[in-house]
């Protein structure tokens, strides 16, 4: 939906609008957002796949730029949507990462401060539980959950990214959180757990 007075458009929208006829301007969009998109991808499918997919995200975005809705000054949710779609094509890699999170290893801790060590140690045990829970979520629920938990998008931004109504974002998040809580509650000695966590 290209239109409107270019001077009135701020941020990414004006850059993208102009890049339709001046393609080289699109590099600005990369420079502004690639690091965050890359980190999101790395969190879901690992560093190596992320290195590949971040390029693919921006190529896709570039090819679709003439369809960018310029009423949105911030292109990042749009880019998250493209990246999430690519994650969907690497489902097995993503699930494998969450399954590997179940493995508990002895060798990740270099902190000297006792508090930090304990926080990291607890975090790694939790990692094992959460990894398992994430595998069990429906893909659409997992997408919503991780955009909010990992990337701290608002409901509106998630709705835009995934092209779904805000109501659907809420219901998917609610379902995902319930499943997570259920998985965590499955553990006995949860009381002790919460004691440790509340000391952070």
């Amino acid at each position, binding site marked *: 939906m290209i239109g409107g007075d270019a001077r009135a458009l701020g941020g990414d929208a004006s850059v993208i609008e102009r890049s339709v006829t001046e*393609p080289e301007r*699109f*590099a600005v969009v*990369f*420079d502004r957002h*690639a*690091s*965050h998109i*890359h*980190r999101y991808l*790395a*969190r879901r499918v690992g560093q*190596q*796949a992320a*290195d*590949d*997919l*971040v*390029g*693919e995200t*921006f*190529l896709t975005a*570039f090819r679709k730029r003439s369809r960018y809705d310029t009423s949105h000054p911030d292109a990042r949710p749009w880019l998250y949507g493209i990246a999430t779609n690519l994650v969907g*094509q690497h489902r*097995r890699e993503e699930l*494998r990462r969450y399954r*590997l*999170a*179940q*493995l*508990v*290893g*002895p060798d990740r801790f270099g902190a000297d401060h006792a508090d930090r*060590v304990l926080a990291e*140690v*607890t*975090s790694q*045990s*939790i*990692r*094992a539980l*959460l*990894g*398992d829970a994430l595998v069990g979520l429906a893909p659409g629920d997992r997408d919503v959950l*991780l955009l*909010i*938990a990992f990337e701290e998008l608002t409901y509106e931004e998630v709705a835009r990214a995934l092209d779904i109504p805000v109501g659907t974002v809420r219901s998917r998040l609610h379902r995902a*959180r319930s499943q997570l*809580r259920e998985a*965590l509650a*499955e*553990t*006995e*000695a*949860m009381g*002790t*757990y919460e004691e440790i*966590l*509340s000391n*952070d």
Partner: protein
Amino acid sequence: MTELELLRELGDGTPLAELADLADARTRLMREISAERAAVTAPRARPSARIRRPRRSRLVAAATVSLAAAAAVVFGMLQSGASHVRSMASDPVGQLPVLARPTAVQVLHRAAFVALASATITPRGDQFVYTRTTQSPGHTIQSWLSVDGTRASRVGPHSMPGCVNGRMSMRLLREDGGKLRYDGPIFTRRCTPQRAYFPDMPTRAAGMLPYLERTQGVRPDDLNDIAKTVGELLDSDYLLPAQQAALYGFLAQTPGITVRRDVTDVAGRPGVGVAWSSGGGQAMLIFDSRTYTYLGMSTRGVGGQRSGTALLTTAIVAAVGQVSGPSATPAPTDGA
């Protein structure tokens, strides 16, 4: 602390890359931008659309022909006299006519033939599947996976408790005077045992897809999902020779696979690849070009980056830490 905050911690350690680290991706974008600038400035004679013709029908036709040819060879061998049997066992593929440029289907059928020549060993539940693999040159990992999932497994330096009667016990780590100890409070959680050997996996290609759907969650219309699952099973778990052959035969029937000659696995071993499109890149199962033994699965991303597993050794062993076994129960010779 809410479960959302706990989840956030899971992703917190991931570093934010500098733009310099993303130079490859940026270059790819700039190349595309340049290409479009050139197209925009140069007048186009006529707008053209790239039409992708579906290639499925051609591949299925080719597969049918090769299947018949390979079957003829295999049946010919099996019907020949007993004198061939001993030499077949020591060098099964040596009895087959040499194929200079096998198709993907031919590679898979030969791999199945070779797999069937191996002795069938049936692991016991209390044993472990030992694998030694490489994921990048010079970096090998050893793993011990509990055959029935009830014993603690080890993958490299990491361990995972077994699942007994539907519950898994884990101890929180505890810090004590600078040392980390695995004697914090115990917590248990519900689990299903993660097997490394599947007695109910079909030994024929027919029925393999429903089985993979049901037990591995593959999407039946997604070749990448199917083929990667097969690769993961081959790379990590123990399969009976007949199960391995059945997986190869099943893949051979699946449209969309192609052959890639003169490839190397991630350990640098040369071979021939059975490949398919994966995301924007390609993945493949690699086989030794002469013996058709399985070497490992490898993926090439859109940017050309390679990753994967090279399978160096597999064995059934009695305990974590052992690298060769007391033999598992040999299967009764009933013509497997």
